[in-house]
């Protein structure tokens, strides 16, 4: 197309408005961007900001009530007694156990996730990149319960893991591990080790994706520059890769940590009879009917996650999500 052809058919500088309801609305949005903004945010704010946050606060408020131990009725007077109950040895145990588990799961996920994420971000190209992407997405999207079920099959006493170890003549190792005090048990499917493995397995993809996203942003020549300047691979990892991947790891740890803190299904199906926070909340609000204590228990992960999110935000983890 030549310039003359364009000029022969000039467009007026100011087009007529499209008119009608639509035009009027469009003009209104243009003139009053605040109105449009309000309209865009109103539905979500109404639901999330008022109903959701409202019911969260209603729940939290109940933690300041207490339960009458004889009648089982809820005493609606402000008291800190329920919070005091949290510090009973049994309850403190539950909290410590859950937080330790969450920390270990997060750590293990980060260690297993890093090589996968790094390979996918830096070395995988074309077909392999696709394979890695699907390789992480498929397990992530597979049903949570099916994954737990699969591990029940694997960890059961008559299951595949015992069979495999027997074939490798390593049963003594399994028996030795199971006879250890805290992590052991009758079989892997009723031990903390089993709970730990399943937690790591189920939340691992949540760690891989943000770490990979963070590593994608690291230019390859930074790593090369580091080795050109004489750094060993270990030094490059410590001083270049790891700090740059850290926001991604923190972003992933938000998921692994929070999901482990609140989960009550995995420890119920694969684990010992010793409770985690989620199970404690579930049984307190359900069978025990002690809503105040259940509410006080839910405050624990909220407080922990509050600090966690605050710290994560400061580290720039939200940009890596």
């Amino acid at each position, binding site marked *: 197309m030549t310039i003359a052809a364009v000029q022969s058919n000039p467009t007026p500088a100011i*087009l007529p408005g499209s008119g009608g309801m639509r035009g009027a609305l469009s003009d209104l949005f*243009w003139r009053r961007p605040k109105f449009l903004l309000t309209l865009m945010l109103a539905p979500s704010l109404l639901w999330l900001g008022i109903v959701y946050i409202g019911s969260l606060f209603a729940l939290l408020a109940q933690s300041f009530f207490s339960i009458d131990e004889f009648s089982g009725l809820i005493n609606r007077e402000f008291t800190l007694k329920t919070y005091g109950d949290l510090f009973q040895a049994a309850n403190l145990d539950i909290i410590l156990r859950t937080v330790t588990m969450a920390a270990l799961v997060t750590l293990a996920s980060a260690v297993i996730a890093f090589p996968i994420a790094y390979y996918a971000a830096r070395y995988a190209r074309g077909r392999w990149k696709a394979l890695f992407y699907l390789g992480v997405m498929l397990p992530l999207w597979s049903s949570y319960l099916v994954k737990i079920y699969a591990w029940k099959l694997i960890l059961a006493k008559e299951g595949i893991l015992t069979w495999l170890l027997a074939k490798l003549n390593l049963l003594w190792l399994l028996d030795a591990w199971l006879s250890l005090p805290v992590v052991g048990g009758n079989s892997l499917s009723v031990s903390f080790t089993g709970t730990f493995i399943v937690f790591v397995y189920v939340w691992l993809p949540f760690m891989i994706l943000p770490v990979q996203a963070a590593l994608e942003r690291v230019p390859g020549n930074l790593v090369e520059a580091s080795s050109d300047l004489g750094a060993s691979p270990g030094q490059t990892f410590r001083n270049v890769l790891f700090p740059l991947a850290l926001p991604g790891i923190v972003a992933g740890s938000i998921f692994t940590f929070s999901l482990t803190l609140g989960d009550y299904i995995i420890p119920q199906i694969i684990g010992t009879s010793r409770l985690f926070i989620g199970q404690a909340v579930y049984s307190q609000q359900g069978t025990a009917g002690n809503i105040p204590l259940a*509410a006080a228990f839910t405050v624990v*992960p909220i407080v922990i996650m509050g600090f966690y999110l605050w710290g994560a935000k400061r580290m720039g983890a939200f940009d890596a999500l």
Partner: protein
Amino acid sequence: MRSDRGQSAPLGLKIAAACGLLFLHLPILLIFVYAFTTEEKSFVWPPPGLTTQWFAVTWNRPDVWDALSLSVRVAAISTAIALVLGTLCAAAVSQTRFFGREAISLLVILPIALPGIITGIALRSAFALADIPFSFWTIVLGHATFCVVVVYNNAVARFRRTSGSMIEASMDLGADGFQTFRHVVLPNIATALLAGGMLAFALSFDEVIVTTFTAGQQQTVPIWMLEELIRPRQRPVTNVVAMVVVLVTLLPILFAYYLTRDGDQIAGSGK
């Protein structure tokens, strides 16, 4: 020309990555074998024999069909709600600056950042307070609450990459707000929305923790499976349902991947 193209990874990294991927996939593959086992009572490995009779048994179970249909309906409607709310929030947050903007992204992330059991109990007490009986819609509301965030995250990421000058150009060329949305914004964010929508669907289809608090007597597929896990009545049927669930979730992922793969690869190599 990038110099790292032809480079290959250190052996240790290759092995670690491969082991990680195997760890992620072998347990799911195992489900496929167990669906054919003749053993009814235990999880014995290797399976004593193989049979396809459990597929017929499962096919004739009305409770399985009811659960499946409920799950699909809930997931579809929650995804639709999440798509609208998530896109609107994402557009508002990324296109304009206003007071409390940071708070909104935190608010949207909250339902998924807080443990599911808290969201579940909070919603349950809200429904109880408002005298809303448990129904299909209470499940949908619960699911939509945490599905918004996945759509939001996908849309925000895409908006961040979409240059605002395109919208201005469209306006300068005389398009009104709706035309700009239809012809400029939507094509730009479509794949992100699709991916977000698929993720929201899968999240809802799979959700069990919040659902236990917001469902009455109805059973979604996860609730059905949970019942079977806690009180196993018919292990072979559970095996088959587990396998079908894996297959059913496989298809939308592959589909979403097929639709968004070009954009993703550009995003990956353009950095």
